[in-house]
């Protein structure tokens, strides 16, 4: 795609909007359709689009394979960790009620953090799958 000017320029225009949209879907997931999974897929799509147009190596300079492989378990760790914090506040596993000054805000914070974990794992897993397929036959 090196010579295709239109694709390269349009991609550069689109990427920031895709990322903002991913964040919108992530943070507005509390009030409307969306959430960590969908936002994670959109965020991963920006990396994948970049890799398709500029090549796998360019994408790996931005998001390295090691970073991706660390993010996959990290998201699960955040999810499970928030559950463990529920214990520390004296409640059952995954009970977020005591995370903030009242129950409603505690639940909101809990879901917010858990969704962040989902976002990290889903987006990195998507990118990892893409890297695995795109990297086939290179070694």
């Amino acid at each position, binding site marked *: 795609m090196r010579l295709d000017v239109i694709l390269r320029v349009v991609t550069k225009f689109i990427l920031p909007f895709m990322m903002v949209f991913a964040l919108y879907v992530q943070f507005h997931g509390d009030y409307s359709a969306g959430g960590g999974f969908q936002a994670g897929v959109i965020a991963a799509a920006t990396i994948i689009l970049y890799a398709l147009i500029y090549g796998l190596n360019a994408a790996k300079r931005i998001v390295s394979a090691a970073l991706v492989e660390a993010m*996959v*378990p990290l998201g699960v*760790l955040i999810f499970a960790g928030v559950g*463990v914090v529920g214990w520390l506040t004296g*409640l*059952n596993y995954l009970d977020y009620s005591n995370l903030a000054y009242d129950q409603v805000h505690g639940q909101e914070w809990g879901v917010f953090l858990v969704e962040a974990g989902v976002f990290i794992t889903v987006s990195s897993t998507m990118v990892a799958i893409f890297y695995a397929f795109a990297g086939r036959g290179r070694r």
Partner: protein
Amino acid sequence: MSEHLPALQVVVPLLGAVLAALVRRPGPAWLITVVVSFATPVIAAMLLVQVLDGGVISYHLGGWDPSVGIEYRVDVVNALVLLLVSSVAAVIAPFARLSVLSEVPDDRVAWFYSMYLISLAGLLGIAITGDAFNAFVFLEVSSLSSYALIAMGRDRRALVAAYQYLIMGTIGASFYVIGVGLIYTMTGTLNLGLIAERIGDVESTRPVLVALAFIVVGISLKLALFPLHVWLPNAYAYAPSVATVFLAATATKVAIYLFARFVFSVFGAGFVFADLPVTEILVVLSVAAIFGASTVAIFQSDVKRMFAYSSVGQVGYITLGLSLATVTGLTGGLVHLVNHAMIKAAIFMGLGAVFYRVGKIEFDDIAGVGRRMPITMSAVVIACLSLVGVPGTAGFVSKWYLIVAAIEVGWWWLGLLIVLSSMLTVIYVGRFFECVWFREPAGEVARAGEPPLEMLVPICILAAATVYFGIDTELTAGMAERAAVALLQGVR
């Protein structure tokens, strides 16, 4: 902290898996696996003690009421399964280090342990949860990780085996979730206890019958009931040794537990076995499994494949016990579930040690290995004798219960068939004995010696357990009988 034990049972291996994936180095990942694998049986044992003291434990995840949220529910039945699965994991952990290092590429060892712990978390989750959909999620968690475990096997056939298992396993899980969906439409709840309370009013409706069919077939795929077993032999044969030991000892057993839970506690034995011809179907399939798979096992050239077919046959004994739907039959099935897990773990671990020393596992390649690795092979022989059902071993106890159960319901011919089928086991086990003891060691085998102590000790522990539980049956048969009574009472 003791009130949080049910959640810890699943969260500890899950966190261990995440940490193993984060450290990415073989040594620390193995260390995490050992710590987690030793912690889980302690938790399971404490749960069992709590259940025996104070009855059923109910734990509400996230503090939600069971009617809307997920409930972990521990009674005698799943406390026994939890203890079994976690104990097997604890015995495997020390054995795993050298075996995994020799069979899995270095850069994948940490992933292997991560997948292994996720699979453990999934299996413990299926056993502990009291929520039908949560059980599906854990079923997928354990299955997906076990596909990856199998695919890391030594030769390329492992990929095909994993793919075959993936297709079959996904069909099974889909059937299960279709059944759960139908139940949900009819009862309006996913909690197993609440379903059991409400299903009596709608049990004669077609959706409930269809749900029962889907769930029975779906779980039967997972537990490798006879015509649905084709994924199992290749998966066990080509997976890394440690994965084979773990899956053979736990995966099908947990699926059998889920089967028993649905058939007895949720749908109710009266509905499934008295109103519908499930007993007849299951008895025929179980007997076919016992004789068919045992016969096929005799003609295998790969030792792991032979014992994999033997597993299909042994699952037949367990489902045979369940299908009789009497206390004795169910006790026999559950005892054999526990005993077979120990037996097969010992055998496959012994084969793993042979593979570690010799590098091959075909009959011709390991001829005479018993003369070079006498302790390992003696342990395998003890486990094999238990598989046959020689008196004084654990296998005898379970077969005894099954035969008594068959005679109790007046099916003396079934008892005769169980005895006859043991003869088939004698043939394929005898072929193995002849190969490893009575032939001259040659090639790699001649240079092989006993494996290191960290591999030898777990094998001997398991072999000793198969003898111990053949004599002292308080923990196995005693617990199984209490579990059988609890299952047959059900809610209704």
